């Protein structure tokens, strides 16, 4: 049996979309639990937010923002592949992968600039 070829951009996009989704699924309950702390009063919530302000936690938040962006952009490509007409038989919209990855990097950079005070505002 021959395995499917994996050394191409579409496979990388598939793995990127899947692993970012898995990471987000693991993170989401924790995110909801953290927001739920607001029910226990502003002091408790502020205590958590002060912890979240530490640089290594900010770096983890940056990772999640990038993962969410990757999942969004690669997911939009999958929807387009599955639901829109194909212009040619071989049109895998591989150019969208580069745009998606670039978009995720851009969102990550904007987050970093805001989080570490490099914005103009």
């Amino acid at each position, binding site marked *: 049996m021959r395995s499917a070829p994996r050394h191409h951009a579409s496979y990388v996009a598939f793995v990127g979309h899947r692993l970012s989704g898995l990471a987000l699924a693991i993170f989401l309950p924790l995110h*909801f639990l953290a927001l739920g702390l607001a029910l226990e009063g502003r002091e408790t919530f502020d205590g958590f937010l002060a912890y979240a302000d530490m640089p290594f936690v900010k770096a983890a938040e940056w990772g999640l923002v990038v993962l969410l962006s990757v999942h969004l952009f690669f997911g939009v490509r999958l929807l387009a592949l599955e639901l829109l007409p194909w212009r040619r038989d071989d049109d895998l919209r591989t150019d969208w992968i580069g745009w998606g990855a670039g978009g995720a990097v851009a969102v990550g950079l904007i987050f970093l600039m805001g989080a570490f005070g490099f914005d103009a505002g």
Partner: protein
Amino acid sequence: MTEARLFALQRITAMVLAPMVLIHLAVIVYAVRGGLTAEEILARTGTSALWPLFYLLFVAAAAIHAPIGLRNILREWTGLPPRLVDGLCLVFGLALAGLGIRAVIAISGWTA
């Protein structure tokens, strides 16, 4: 539920989530400037009914979308019995919905 329905549900929720994720990302990069405080977050989300409603829809769509995706991963990448995977993902979806609704209530100011 049939595979076709699960497939369609995941795509429909993806179409709902895509613009919401864009808005959420914009809120994140805006809100993170200068650090986060409880007062700032609650002032933003608690002063208008639209934000809690936005996030309720967000939670509902995510609580459907994520378990179906997780089910696909567990079915394709692990040897777990399909019925066990279905049960785990159903519990995961219900937990996400419950925790998510609780989180929206917490930031909405509805309990104040």
